[in-house]
């Protein structure tokens, strides 16, 4: 009986399909008060006055607090946390849940209303009058770099930090001096609004006595919440229980410690009443961080054949108004991947982080890695054109290990790639796409001068996931380890219970973990229950982000199962009067070698361990083991994506006709779930390439905060996908798994824009800025043809 590797239907589904999934906004507590946020309408201004009198007189209003009043209440021991000080001298202005004195972005909280209902809180918040003293706003990276206006009045410069990874500067200079071909390209990674379908929400419920608070939050990181809210509020960690109930998607947007979470916790604790809040979708553009926001400059040096000699990268990264949990580190997560899947002798990366008067940026699906993949994969296409070879050929010439299979290969960005096998990935993708036929059809349309031209775009990506070896994170200045914790126990009735510190929000952990345990212990996956996302039930955990759950948390579960089997073996040997080494464990039972009739199922052993009537001397009762797994290396999934687009040259409209994705995430636990992750990831990258763009005006106002104007694609814009997989197990963990949560997004934006540029190449067009809107494409064609 083996379930790992089969497309088992998800355990999570019946609840979610019948409306029984309980998200934060579905949970209520008697006597709860709703928070209504009074948010800044100015990007940068002094707060000259806050008049709460009209709001306080509104029906149902319990209290109205200005930022200054909240600060005076002593709710906070420290500002909201940034867990990733990337350099010792990184500038990090204090970020409290409420603004006092000066606001630094539209949407920053100035005052808070507490009222009996959501509507009353909203109505009252609208009655609070704020007097502003406008200050010049910094509303772009370009403006931040001039250091004319300052995003924070007290700062000498908008620059927060400079981070560099240039292992061998002399070798890098020599590579560029020796090169035949040079490519210099600049790309804009526009800001994106993550938009998980469930808006964020929070409910803090104080205990009747004793100072306990239970915090329900739509969070990817309840464990981080508990620790960091304790550290910043002064409420003892032991008094905080953080629960992430059903969570409706995250994509990084729910990987933070937010002002609203700290406000709900501290006000509930202070007032002794439950306090809640759920963001509206339009509010989310300001109350939840955004993604991307980078200007990239990438330079390639290559020899006459197009073989890379060096890659040099500089980023200017938009931090937004404040450093949030991992804001400064996001660009750095990509830094190691700007050489992509290629053998590059010399490499250098620098990044400047800049403050602006916009919503803070932070992790969004891929977090630094889609940006890296985009830059190198776009630049490789430009190099191919210079060398005069196809995009497939330029990649083949440069693959690490010549496209052959490798393990534990050091790359110049100082990492060791766990395993890779890039040649077959490209072969399979081109084969599936029917590459030669596509090129023939493209040639036909070009020759016929048709208005709808075909573009074919390739991307071969590698990503870094399975975050992470704790020592490596320490080396990067990250304020956390990267391990994951698991408990596996067999209950007296023979059913298994797993406690995981990994926190799902749509990934199907309950199903995947059940499959791992089922195979390990030889039981039915239906007999495995997975507990998670509640710090009272799983006190140790580092949650879900960076495609880490399987490669760290899943591995911890498998290893805990091994410990359970080891203990069970001792019990079985004792009770069967055999040597432990003479027992075989298969199909959920121990059998004495050579005596197939002498057998003992693990359920019987579990009951025996519970009774404890007949255990080996000194053995603890019960069959339960725990494991904290700290990986020895990151995992490096890879793949090749092919996008086929049709560009209407009369309108500039780009349609995605086909999308072929060949991915390699090592061994797979549940191919149904793996494919689903790829599908969703692809659309988020395609959306960045073609539609999504948080559009800020020069005054620091967001022009498209609602879903009316921010173009999240629907089913009508997308084709069905053509997916396939290669399997190159990771040597970095015993399951040979890598991770798949972000891969689709990391491969797709580059593939799509490469396809658009490929379609437009007869015009001499080499780049289209994202998103490639009809207006941009049409304009590029007009300008090229003048």
């Amino acid at each position, binding site marked *: 009986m083996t379930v790992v590797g089969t497309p088992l239907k998800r355990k999570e589904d019946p609840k979610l*399909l*019948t409306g029984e999934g309980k998200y934060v*906004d579905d949970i209520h507590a008697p006597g709860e008060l709703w928070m209504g946020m009074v948010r800044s309408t100015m990007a940068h201004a002094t707060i000259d006055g806050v008049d709460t009198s009209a709001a306080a007189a509104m029906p149902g209003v319990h209290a109205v607090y200005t930022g200054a009043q909240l600060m005076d209440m002593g709710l906070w021991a420290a500002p909201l946390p940034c867990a990733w000080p990337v350099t010792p001298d990184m500038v990090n202005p204090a970020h409290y849940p409420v603004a006092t004195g000066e606001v630094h972005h539209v949407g920053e909280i100035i005052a808070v209303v507490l009222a009996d209902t959501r509507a009353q809180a909203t109505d009252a918040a609208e009655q609070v009058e704020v007097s502003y003293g406008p200050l010049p706003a910094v509303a772009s990276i370009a403006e931040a770099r001039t250091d004319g206006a300052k995003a924070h009045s007290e700062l000498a410069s908008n620059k927060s930090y400079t981070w560099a990874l240039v292992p061998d500067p002399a070798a890098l200079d020599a590579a560029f001096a020796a090169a035949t071909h040079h490519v210099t390209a600049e790309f804009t990674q526009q800001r994106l609004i993550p938009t998980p*379908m469930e808006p964020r929400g929070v409910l803090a419920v104080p205990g009747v006595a004793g100072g306990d608070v239970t915090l329900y939050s739509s969070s990817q990181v309840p464990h981080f919440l508990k620790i960091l809210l304790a550290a910043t509020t002064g409420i003892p960690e032991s008094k905080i229980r953080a629960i992430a109930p059903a969570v409706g998607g995250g994509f990084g947007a729910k990987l933070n410690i937010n002002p609203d979470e700290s406000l709900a916790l501290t006000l509930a604790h202070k007032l002794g009443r439950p306090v809640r809040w759920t963001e509206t979708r339009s509010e989310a553009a300001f109350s939840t961080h955004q993604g991307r926001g980078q200007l990239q400059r990438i330079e390639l040096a290559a020899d006459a054949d197009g073989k890379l000699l060096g890659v040099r990268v500089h980023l200017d990264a938009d931090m937004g108004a404040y450093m949030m949990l991992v804001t400064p580190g996001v660009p750095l997560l990509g830094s190691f991947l700007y050489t992509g899947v290629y053998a590059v002798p010399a490499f250098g990366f620098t990044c400047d982080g800049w403050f602006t008067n916009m919503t803070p940026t932070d992790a969004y699906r891929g977090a630094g890695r889609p940006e890296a993949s985009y830059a190198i994969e776009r630049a490789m296409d430009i190099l191919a054109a210079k060398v005069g070879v196809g995009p497939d050929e330029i990649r083949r010439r440069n693959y690490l290990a010549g496209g052959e299979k490798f393990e534990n290969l050091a790359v110049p960005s100082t990492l060791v790639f766990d395993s890779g096998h890039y040649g077959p990935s490209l072969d399979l993708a081109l084969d599936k796409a029917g590459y030669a036929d596509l090129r023939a059809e493209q040639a036909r349309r070009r020759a016929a001068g048709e208005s709808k031209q075909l573009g074919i775009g390739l991307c071969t990506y590698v990503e870094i996931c399975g975050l992470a070896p704790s020592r490596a994170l320490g080396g990067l200045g990250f304020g956390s380890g990267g391990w994951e914790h698991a408990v596996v126990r067999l209950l007296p009735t023979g059913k298994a219970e797993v406690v995981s510190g990994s926190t799902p929000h749509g990934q199907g952990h309950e199903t995947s973990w059940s499959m791992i345990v089922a195979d390990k212990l030889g039981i039915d996956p239906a007999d495995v229950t997975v507990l998670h996302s509640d710090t009272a039930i799983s006190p140790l955990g580092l949650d879900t982000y960076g495609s880490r759950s399987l490669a760290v948390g899943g591995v911890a579960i498998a290893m805990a199962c091994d410990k359970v089997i080891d203990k069970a073996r001792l019990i079985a040997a004792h009770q069967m009067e055999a040597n432990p080494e003479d027992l075989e464990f298969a199909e959920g039972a121990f059998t004495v070698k050579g005596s197939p009739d002498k057998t003992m199922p693990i359920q019987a052993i579990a009951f025996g361990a519970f009774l404890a009537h007949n255990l080996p001397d000194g053995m603890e009762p019960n069959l339960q083991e725990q494991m904290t797994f700290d990986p020895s290396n990151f995992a490096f999934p890879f793949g090749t994506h092919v996008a086929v687009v049709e560009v209407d040259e009369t309108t500039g409209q780009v349609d995605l006709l086909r999308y072929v994705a060949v991915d390699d995430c090592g061994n797979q636990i549940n191919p149904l779930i793996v494919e689903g992750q790829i599908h969703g990831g692809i659309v988020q990258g395609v959306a960045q390439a073609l539609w999504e763009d948080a559009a800020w005006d020069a005054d620091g106002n967001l022009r498209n905060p609602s879903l009316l104007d921010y173009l999240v694609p629907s089913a009508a814009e*997308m084709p069905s996908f053509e997916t396939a997989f290669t399997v190159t197990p990771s040597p970095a963990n015993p399951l040979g798994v890598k991770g798949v949560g972000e891969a689709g997004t990391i491969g797709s934006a580059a593939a799509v824009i490469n396809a658009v540029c490929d379609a437009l190449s007869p015009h001499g067009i080499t780049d289209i800025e994202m998103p490639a809107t009809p207006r941009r494409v049409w304009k590029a064609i007009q300008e090229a043809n003048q």
Partner: protein
Amino acid sequence: MQVDMTVNGQARSADVEARTLLVYHLRDALGLTGTNVGCDTSSCGACTVLLNGESVKSCTILAAQVRGAEVTTIEGLADGTSLHPMQQAFMECHGLQCGYCTPGMVLAATSLLAENPSPTEAEVREGLEGNLCRCTGYHNIVKAVLHTAEHDADFWQTQAGAR
């Protein structure tokens, strides 16, 4: 004001503020939290319910406008513990991940097949245009709808005939 309606086959009566949207009436007054709120501009479709058998975004209509009507929410779709064919198809085809858009998506798809029991892929995609999903990339949602249209063709023909 007093508003009476039939929800999932049961007569429900409640006193509501005139400005109450149907979605908040269902969620807050009737406790039917399976209907989700995903936006504030009637763009996402997470709140889709069936109103007299046809899909409607319950954030676009006032509770008071629904007096005397029949409303079906996701809680009313399954027959006891056996899933409705559309729910079953979503499970078979992995048409959901986080589940937040799912109630609205399932009801929109149900309404779609009741109108057009054997749609093309393009018709399914167009038909679900008003419902956003951020997890699945729509691939498996579309697959699920086409799957049940084919495998439960008799059921859907009956549904269409009943309209």
